[in-house]
């Protein structure tokens, strides 16, 4: 396994339930059983041009979770010159787990939490090096 840090960045989306699901998946990954391996970072730091955040991403393996086709997390990381190790689109994961349709942006409900778990499993299964 690489010594590089693994950083998971969700899209920070505030308009749709999928943004909240991306956020939930990030916390499931970084605040529970896998917190020694995966960390997160505020995506808005890149919008503000925070150099410390940019430098850290440049020496990390970056996993992005996007809630819509605008792909804010992935494109923001790429725009600072960092390659994304793995990119997850919430709607695509839902298409493979249609029984886990989330509720609203304010409350994704049990199915939203389960969809987030699907995303975590996908990253653990396909994103490990």
């Amino acid at each position, binding site marked *: 396994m690489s010594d590089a840090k693994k950083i998971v960045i969700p*899209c920070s989306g505030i308009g749709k339930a999928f943004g909240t699901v991306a956020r939930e998946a990030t916390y499931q990954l970084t605040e529970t059983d896998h917190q020694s391996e995966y960390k997160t970072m505020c995506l808005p730091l890149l919008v503000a041009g925070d150099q410390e955040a940019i430098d850290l991403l440049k020496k990390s393996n970056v996993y992005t979770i996007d809630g819509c086709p605008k792909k804010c997390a992935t494109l923001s990381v790429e725009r600072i010159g960092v390659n994304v190790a793995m990119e997850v689109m919430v709607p695509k994961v839902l298409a493979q787990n249609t029984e886990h349709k989330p509720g609203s942006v304010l409350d994704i409900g049990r199915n939203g939490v389960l969809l987030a778990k699907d995303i975590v499993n996908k990253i653990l299964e396909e994103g490990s090096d």
Partner: protein
Amino acid sequence: MSELPKVGIISCSGEDCPGGNISREATLRVLHDLRPDETVTICLPLFLAGGEGERGFAKRFPTITVDGCGKLCAAIGTARFSSKPTVEINLEDYDDFSSLKTEEKWHIQESSKDLVEKLANDIVNHVDEIRKISE
């Protein structure tokens, strides 16, 4: 029917700090419950990832930025890519900020619900004031 402009609210929603979750929750409270017809929002990262349409947001709408910490990502990002915010709110200016717990970045604690309400009400006051000035 009111012709007053809608007011933009942009939350930092920072994932790695408790204040980001508070700013997000308070912003959603205003957008969904308190002033749903008077306010609009945009995902902050769209300023970097999006195009000219998204970057025109703060030029089109008088905008309130809501930041969860002193890094002021929402205020700086909005000014950098769109236009200087009309109002900049920083959660660090609130007395309750220092009592926020790390786990609140995921789940807002019962003890912080008052802070969410206080922040939401302050946003509402700014929304009403901006629209009043526009009359």
